[in-house]
């Protein structure tokens, strides 16, 4: 057995053990299922209520991904702008820091005020919450590109645009993908948050409604769904990262000498 599979096996049994302990403690300590339902109960609820949950899952996914996509587009544009121009960096950075330090929960009421409750504020919250890490990472990647690499193209008479395309942007990809993993998780948080506050659709709203009806196991079922979705989204971007920017992490392999 290799080290990697052993670690994987241990990690799986750790997860399994966690739920097992939860189950056992609930039984032994006789915890009311109005406080903390047992994992088996949650699993049953998840299974029986899944047809009801499914459209809400899609709704949350839709709000998250739409907001995330918009956030990526805006984040990359701003990042490229302030990463390539020292003036733009100096001018825009203080305002960006100001924006980023606002707790994003605070903007949900404003979006609700402007667009009413529903999908739009969820998308917008998912968007604003993920822009900043992308901007910072793109800008950092571009600003820290080794001058040597740029000099290679400059001596060939390359234009600024050619240098950006052939050196700056590829060099920035590891930063970009690292930020995507953070950003997708944040978008997800933003979307659910907004659904919880002001929406009649989405997993956030399901949990809110279930909680006020004391359907505690449904609340936990929602939580499990959220955890699984979050992990799936993270894993997807992790995979994408390893495919696109493998060159940045492969340096530890055996080199030919």
């Amino acid at each position, binding site marked *: 057995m290799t080290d990697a599979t052993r670690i994987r096996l241990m990690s799986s049994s750790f997860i399994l053990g966690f739920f097992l302990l939860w189950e056992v403690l609930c039984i032994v300590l006789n915890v009311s299922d109005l406080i903390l339902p047992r994992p088996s109960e949650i699993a049953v609820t998840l299974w029986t209520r899944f047809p009801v949950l499914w459209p809400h899952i899609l709704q949350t996914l839709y709000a998250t991904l739409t907001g995330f996509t918009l956030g990526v587009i805006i984040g990359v544009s701003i990042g490229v702008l302030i990463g390539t121009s020292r003036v733009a960096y100096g001018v825009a950075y203080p305002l960006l820091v100001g924006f980023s330090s606002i707790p994003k929960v605070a903007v949900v009421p404003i979006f609700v005020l402007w667009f009413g409750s529903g999908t739009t504020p969820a998308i917008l919250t998912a968007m604003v919450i993920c822009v900043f890490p992308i901007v910072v990472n793109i800008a950092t990647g571009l600003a820290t590109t080794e001058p040597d690499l740029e000099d290679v193209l400059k001596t*060939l008479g390359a234009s600024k645009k050619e240098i950006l395309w052939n050196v700056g942007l590829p060099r920035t990809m590891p930063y970009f993908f690292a930020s995507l993993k953070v950003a997708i998780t944040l978008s997800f948080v933003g979307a659910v948050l907004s659904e919880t506050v002001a929406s009649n659709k989405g997993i956030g709203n399901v949990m809110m409604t279930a909680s006020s009806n004391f359907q505690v196991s449904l609340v936990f079922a929602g939580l499990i769904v959220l955890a699984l979705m979050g992990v799936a989204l993270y894993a997807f971007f992790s995979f994408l990262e390893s495919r696109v920017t493998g060159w940045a992490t492969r340096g530890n392999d055996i080199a030919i000498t």
Partner: protein
Amino acid sequence: MNMTSDIPAQAMPVPATPPASRTNPVHARPAIELQDASVVFGKGPQSVTALSPTTLRMERGDFLALVGPSGCGKSTILRLVSNLIQPSSGLVLLGGREVAAKELRIGMAFQNPTMLPWLTIEKNVMLPLKIVEPFKRTFRQDRKGAYRDRVHALLAQVGLKDFANHFPWQLSGGMLQRANLCRALIHDPDLLLLDEPFGALDQFTREELWQILQDLYLDRKPTVLLVTHDLREAGFLARRICVMSARPGRVISDRAVDLPQPRDIGVIYDPAFVEMTQGLRELIAQVRK
């Protein structure tokens, strides 16, 4: 920095040759011409003179080695010629025209191989064909055909045939430097600029690469300007050696190397060769003080 202000006026008398004349009568014009070119970084009392007014001429097809103590401005001359910096005063002409006019195609290799880590060796070497005219015009059509063959042929010439699809981190320092030479030569430059390309290599690898470079030079006959610390390297490769003084540098000695090419690596143990490098060494030792 507005260092170029006085240049257009001086450049005026130079007739505007159309770029198409690359191959024809311009041959009469020297490949590189520095006319009292100087470089000063910064302004006022904190300014640093990197290069005192220097005059230097290089004919086409020549191989000139620039040697001198560290910090004397050798690399500054290379950076002037490759348009990475502009002269604070004086003129830098390539093929009789200003550097920015791109009259001559330039290939350059630095001490650090500077391969782009996300590209394979093949794609790294192909990079100039993507950027430099006239190759870039047909890059899309040719990158999988003619250009690929061209890259592979050159890689084979330096013994990297089997490494075209490897990534830079999979290669040793000497192999990377060979790939670096290939990248500097793939677009058939008129002018090859080498900034201590073998500085970080061990003696055996270095000597091996000297011979590879000599073969490539004799094969293609570009104009080569080599900056180096290594006097034997200068003596073995160059047809002409210029010695520069300590900062702020200027050329204090200019001599030809009267050995027929191709030279055998054994020549560096020849008494006459040793005497020449000794002479250079003493000269540099003097100007270091």
